[in-house]
């Protein structure tokens, strides 16, 4: 990648090193804890699925019972494995027995490690093999398909009805979308379980359920087949069930997952501890499954001002990167988020957008940056919005972004209609083609305003990271460093799901995933 900003490489290194320290600080305690959803994720990995007579998912049934019994702090896997050994049942069998009351948690007798751990490991290895197989399948399908252009066209569907979503997803793919994300029901991230089965009613989006993943995956595979392409499917991990949804994604061959270390804290008021712990296991899963994560820095600019808070996006990207690396994600799997959110009525706003986009590009050269469209400042003037989206596409092609979430001309009005997506794709096709090589032919004046803006942003981000390193990320979030949102360390939803690991805690997947990823090439600070 061509360097156009004349950045001070020492500053860049300092920012990255500082972020690494921040991440290390978190990692000094993250490993001591587990969460209910982490354990439920392990259950799901081991094949536990379905719901009880009250529609409670079996992973919840089992984890709740272990928690009630006060023995979840060793993790779910030991108990499950003991029961498997004792009763010679499959994990699903055990879960069903627990749900139906045929088996009580208290009846699971503690066995010594040598009695169950081999079983645990082999069950886990089996599960891991399935995920590897899915990963391989994706790679093969991608290899067979026509390569897709850059930036990749990413659109969302959000009908609230999975069957309608499937229609829209397919149409979008046929129109040229490379990536389709199914937006979730507005309330789902605060549910402490994952709904089950296909769903046809949701507001602002469709529930993320495993069956729903499957339905849309199928529709997109069909569209891929028809067009000789591979269409990527995206859903959202963030929320109270981050690791579980990652498991579902790994199994159903999703290709990307919204997965941010801080989004839940900031935008859903989820407990900090809970989120930091959850993100770690969740990302391990994504890393292992070969899934690209999308981080959520773009959201900061919907509550904070994009001109003044541009550097917070960078600081957060550095932190997300360092945390991601520590969960086994490669740089190539990190769809770090940023956004085109400067008020379009600002004089020279476009220059500022170019500076920020180019800066992100140069700071994270190996990461498939996810560039988010104008949202906050667009209005019901659909013509204007269409144009602003065009300038967003222009900045993207000019600065070499990779994942382009297409702006919708009705962003200020409703979740996208089928025609809105069509128009957004046509918009991107025009701009990306018409300005294809322009970036390669354009330079920024030495010491000019673009370079100055980039330098300023980098300096501010670096300062901010150094501040955070001093006070710790938790305190920084308490002080409203990100998104102009303050969150107290102990506040937020889901804290009751956090458990300090007891001696004897065991989760075979951590080992499998992290070792399996040891050959990673990602940059570790």
């Amino acid at each position, binding site marked *: 990648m061509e360097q156009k900003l004349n950045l001070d490489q020492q500053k860049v290194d300092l920012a990255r090193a500082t972020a690494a320290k921040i991440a290390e600080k978190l990692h000094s305690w993250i490993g001591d804890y587990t969460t209910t959803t982490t354990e439920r994720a392990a259950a799901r990995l081991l094949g536990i699925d379905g719901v009880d007579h009250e529609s409670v998912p079996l992973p919840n049934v089992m984890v709740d019972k272990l928690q009630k019994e006060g023995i979840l702090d060793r993790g779910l896997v030991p108990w499950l494995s003991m029961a498997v050994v004792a009763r010679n049942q499959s994990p699903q069998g055990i879960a069903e027995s627990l749900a139906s009351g045929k088996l009580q948690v208290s009846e699971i007798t503690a066995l010594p490690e040598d009695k169950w751990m081999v079983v645990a490991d082999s069950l886990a290895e089996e599960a891991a093999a399935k995920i590897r197989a899915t990963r391989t399948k994706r790679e093969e399908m991608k290899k067979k398909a026509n390569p897709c252009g850059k930036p990749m066209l990413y659109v969302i569907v*959000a009908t*609230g009805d999975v069957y309608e979503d499937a*229609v829209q997803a*397919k*149409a*979008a*793919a*046929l*129109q040229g979308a490379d990536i389709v994300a199914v937006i979730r*029901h*507005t*309330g789902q991230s*605060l549910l402490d379980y994952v709904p089950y089965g296909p769903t046809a009613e949701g*507001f*602002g989006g469709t529930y993320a359920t495993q069956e729903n993943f499957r339905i849309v995956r199928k529709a997109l595979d069909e*569209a891929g087949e028809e067009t000789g392409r591979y269409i990527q499917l995206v859903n959202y991990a963030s929320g109270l069930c981050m690791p579980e949804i990652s498991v579902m994604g790994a199994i159903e061959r999703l290709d990307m997952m919204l997965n941010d270390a801080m989004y839940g804290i900031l*935008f*859903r*008021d989820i407990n900090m501890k809970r989120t930091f712990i959850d993100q770690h296991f969740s990302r391990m899963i994504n890393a292992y499954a070969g899934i690209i994560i999308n981080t959520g820095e773009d959201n900061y600019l*919907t*509550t904070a001002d994009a001109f003044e808070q541009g550097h917070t996006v960078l600081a957060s990207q550095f932190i997300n990167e360092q945390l991601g690396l520590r969960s086994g994600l490669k740089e190539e799997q990190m769809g770090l988020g940023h956004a085109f959110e400067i008020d379009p009525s600002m004089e020279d706003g476009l220059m500022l957008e170019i500076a920020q986009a180019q800066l992100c590009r140069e700071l994270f050269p190996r990461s498939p940056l996810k560039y988010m469209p104008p949202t*906050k400042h667009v209005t019901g003037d659909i013509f204007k919005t269409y144009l602003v989206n065009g300038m967003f596409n222009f900045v993207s092609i000019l600065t070499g972004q990779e994942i382009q979430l297409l702006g919708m001309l009705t962003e*200020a009005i*409703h*979740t996208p*209609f*089928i*025609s809105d997506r*069509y*128009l957004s794709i*046509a918009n991107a096709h025009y701009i990306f083609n018409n300005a294809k090589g322009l970036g390669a032919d354009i330079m920024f004046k030495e010491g000019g305003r673009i370079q100055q803006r980039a330098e300023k942003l980098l300096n501010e981000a670096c300062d901010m990271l150094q501040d955070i390193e001093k006070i710790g990320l938790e305190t920084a979030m308490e002080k409203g460093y990100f998104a*102009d949102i303050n969150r107290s360390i102990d506040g937020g939803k889901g804290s009751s799901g956090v458990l300090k690991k007891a001696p004897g805690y065991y989760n075979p997947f951590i080992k499998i995933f992290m070792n399996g990823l040891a050959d990673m090439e990602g940059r570790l600070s």
Partner: protein
Amino acid sequence: MSKDLSRIKAYGDTLNDGATQVSFTLPVPAGDEAREAARQMALKMGLEEPSITFMADLGAGFSFFVVYGKCKHTVDYSAIKIPKKQQEILSYYEINDLIKKELGRKVVVVAACTGSDAHTVGIDAIINMKGYMGEYGLERYPEIEAYNLGSQVPNADLLAKAVELNADAVLVSQVVTQKNIHLENLTELVELAEAEGLRDKVLLICGGPRISHELAIELGYEAGFGPGTLPNHVGSYIVAELVRRKKTEKS
């Protein structure tokens, strides 16, 4: 050019030409038949001489159309009367002064973005210190005690807080409107308030990008605020209404 306000029509470049642009998607693949279907649809909408200027196949059996035509409908503009909030907009200082002078106590407001809606930017703009477009938020008003409960607050929790704080006004924001979820949420709050006997003790005020004053009234609220609302607009309304009520009580 003489304009009859009781029969206004759309205007392109000649009075009463009815010039109107429409776009929509039909669930049929693009083609001559689809184009004709689009034309018929436009005719039904009252567009005369409709011209399909653009047709695109959207894949999966859908097609998109841009249509221009001469809309035959007229509207009686002279008969339109809009219910308006009956008070003038005061400034930050005027509002505080009025509270001191007329109420002689602090005004308590409780605000939230309710249901599963997590769009707090709008309500924050009204409540938080920082405010919006250069206007301070209600938290900053010395004579107002403002509580912002944040996002995704259940209606019941919001009312409980209002009771606890003996609030003068409850402010609800609703941004997500898909499948009219905002109407459901807003209606539920009114019903809950009535059930709990709170309805007359507190001003119910809602706001959001698709809220108008008329709609709010229809739903049983005292007032509704749409896009572009500034904190002092809301402050003015609350104070004026409280003063009004105080005076009515006395008399």
